[in-house]
């Protein structure tokens, strides 16, 4: 009695030949005119986009978000109180000779 491996090898040979038989199956004409009709519907192949063109769709898609961010930033900047910063600046400009570290830090 043959081993399973031998039996399998034999079977594999038969199945491989059966597989190769597939090449001989007649399937008829491909109907190239049907394929060309589909291709014509697709239209001409578009040229490869340049680097800036590749980003164009993203720019327009991100435009509303960026606009909102700018408006939000303006609102935040207007709402922030600049007075303390302004005071320090005035102090530096007007009384540089009396300026001590103690004054700067509110001492």
């Amino acid at each position, binding site marked *: 009695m043959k081993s399973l491996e031998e*039996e399998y090898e034999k079977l594999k040979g038969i199945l491989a030949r059966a597989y190769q038989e597939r090449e001989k199956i007649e399937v008829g004409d491909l109907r190239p005119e049907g394929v060309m009709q589909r291709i014509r519907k697709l239209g001409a192949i578009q040229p490869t986009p340049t680097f800036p063109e590749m980003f164009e769709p993203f720019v327009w898609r991100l435009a509303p978000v960026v606009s909102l961010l700018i408006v939000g930033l303006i609102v935040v900047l207007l709402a922030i109180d600049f007075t303390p910063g302004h005071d320090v600046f005035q102090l530096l400009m007007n009384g540089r000779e009396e300026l001590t570290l103690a004054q700067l830090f509110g001492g």
Partner: protein
Amino acid sequence: MNNGSCDPGDSEIVHQVLAGNVNAFEHLLKKYQNYVLGIVRKHMPYDQVRDVTQDVFIRAYQSLRTFKGDSSFEQWLSTIAVRTCYDFWRKRYKSRELLMSSLSEKHQRWLEEAISDKATQSFRERGLQKEAKEILDWALERLSAEDRMVLELVYLEGHSVKETASLLGWSTANVKVRSFRSRKKLNKLLSKQIGHKRSGT
């Protein structure tokens, strides 16, 4: 597989198509239709061959810009053909139900006879025709799309690991592992059927 350089005629036609002359693609279609049919015929069920071959050419047209002329157009087209077949099986296997049925009594008898020492030459010739194809389809249907493609390309068609990797766009290591596993799975499937018959269940 043709490893030669690109036919200048093909390059010129590709150039024309890319320049907007869609009709020039018909030359490539007519020139290579039998070649692509030959590839698709081996991987597809009979009723799907024509549709899938048409899809191969549509896909080739859409990907024409990726053809750089480093290899022959034929080789580039064969890659698209194999990948289209692979995609077909991936889609088909996703929607299929789990296949549990074993081979019919008739096929099990055929298997038993095929591996027996008494198998005559006439049986081998006769056996090639119908039952062998049905058993092969039965077994391949029970593998994954990946296993099926690797098994067909490496074991049944005799492509090298490198060629198969290039056709499927996989790494050679992946093809090696897959081909080993798929062969084991097929072995197990068929051995189970042989054993099934012997045990008389």
